[in-house]
């Protein structure tokens, strides 16, 4: 009961309609000087649909995605579109991508897809492409330029020569903490494409970039990392308002580097620990980030969810819709020039479950 009241209060505060309040949704909001130009979209990510055998899939992961799709369909006001942030599948099997696509087909909105490593390293994205289209592309919507990158590539030796079979290559990359994996990168070819794509864009146009891995360096051991992040950031630096939204990390992360705001998103499948809770990791979790609540394993949807995003004045307000926790909003604070949590940013506002160790 107290949770419902909290959510209602949250809704009143943020002006989101009550129907959305009870939903674990991440809404992204872009707001403009003229508020009528503001719009929202939803972002769902990391469902890791996992095939067992025959017609059996891991129930827990299915439920996370089914719930996100159902809730996004109930959003009011309706989002302009949906972005899927990658890792729809667990081992890039056709059965997993097909089953995931089937669940996603229930969405009532145009959906843009981002490639994750779990969708890619079996057939290098071939089947995914048949279902969802090109691996990287851009589009414009209401004065905002959107870019989708495939940031989970790695070097040719690892990709083409190291592993005897495609299945083994996929398994090696699928283990987050597997030392046989390889650092992600956008790569020279795609960076050149990005440079050319951005040549046509006015520097005052707000940019929103979607990638699967963080386009910043947090912890290499789990690929919370993109090896050429600085080179990609350099291409984005000339623009006044830039936001990067990434999946992969299954947790709340946010940061500001120069003109670029960064937001990680929740998974619908399961949460990941913060790298700071691995005693032997050297990591760079942004100081700005107030962590999500520690997951309680007894609630299988705890610390999972999706996001709706309000684009306001070209900046992103990220609303995390959390299935088993109080929802969170990370909004761009104009005065401080960075994304900040609307409730927990100050040290003394944080609650014990946000302490990770």
């Amino acid at each position, binding site marked *: 009961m107290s949770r419902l009241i909290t959510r209602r209060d949250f809704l009143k505060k943020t002006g989101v309609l009550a129907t959305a309040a009870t939903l674990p949704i991440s809404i992204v909001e872009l707001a403009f000087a003229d508020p009528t130009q503001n719009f929202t979209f939803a972002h769902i990510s990391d469902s890791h649909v996992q095939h067992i055998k025959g017609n059996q899939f891991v129930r827990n992961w299915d439920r996370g995605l089914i719930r996100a799709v159902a809730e996004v369909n109930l959003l009011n006001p309706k989002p302009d579109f949906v972005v899927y942030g990658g890792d729809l599948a667990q081992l890039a099997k056709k059965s997993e991508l097909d089953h995931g696509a089937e669940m996603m087909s229930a969405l009532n909105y145009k959906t843009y897809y981002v490639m994750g490593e779990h969708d890619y390293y079996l057939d290098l994205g071939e089947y995914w492409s048949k279902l969802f289209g090109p691996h990287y592309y851009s589009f414009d919507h209401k004065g905002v330029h959107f870019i989708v990158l495939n940031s989970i590539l790695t070097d040719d030796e690892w990709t083409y020569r190291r592993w005897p079979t495609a299945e083994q290559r996929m398994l090696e990359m699928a*283990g987050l903490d597997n030392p046989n994996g390889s650092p992600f990168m956008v790569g020279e070819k795609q960076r050149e494409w990005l440079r050319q794509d951005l040549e046509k864009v006015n520097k005052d146009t707000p940019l929103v970039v979607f990638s699967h891995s963080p386009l910043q360096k947090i912890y290499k051991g789990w690929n919370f990392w993109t090896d050429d992040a600085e080179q990609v950031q350099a291409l984005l630096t000339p623009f006044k308002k830039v936001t990067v939204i990434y999946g992969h990390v299954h947790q709340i992360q946010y940061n500001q580097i120069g003109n670029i705001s960064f937001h990680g998103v929740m998974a619908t499948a399961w949460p990941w620990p913060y790298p700071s809770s691995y005693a032997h990791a050297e990591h760079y979790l942004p100081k700005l980030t107030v962590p999500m609540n*520690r997951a309680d*394993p007894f609630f299988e949807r705890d610390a999972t969810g999706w996001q709706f995003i309000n684009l306001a004045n070209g900046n992103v307000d990220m609303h995390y819709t959390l299935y088993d926790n109080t929802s969170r909003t990370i909004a761009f604070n104009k005065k401080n020039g960075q994304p900040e949590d609307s409730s927990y940013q100050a040290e003394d506002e944080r609650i014990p479950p946000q302490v990770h160790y």
Partner: protein
Amino acid sequence: MERINKFGLIFLFMTVAGAAATAIADEFSQQDLTRWESEYLSVVKQGRQAFTDPELGSNGVTCAQCHPNAANTHPETYPKFQKQLGRVVPIWEMINWCIRNPLEGKSLEASDPRLVALQAYIYYERRGVKLDPGKH
């Protein structure tokens, strides 16, 4: 009381016999240390294998899927009170809980070598962190 005395006698006898047969009981060499460590690390390795083994449960899900490098397992905080179980439990009971639920498998016996190995691995990844039983 009588039983304890009997055991005491047996223990005394074994100690004397042992001392006569080998060297002094509390001396060990670098060779011993090396062997004991390698015994331990070989079980850690088996633990890592079990931790990433899709066959540990029934649905292909592995421990490492949610716990990279065994992070967020907090072995140093056990035994501790788990509100959902309503009592204080050692970590192997929580491991079995995970095997039964997210992995949809069957609990292992406390003495099952796989359960011992899983604990060896989880503790190894958390080495150096101070004990803090009961912590949440």
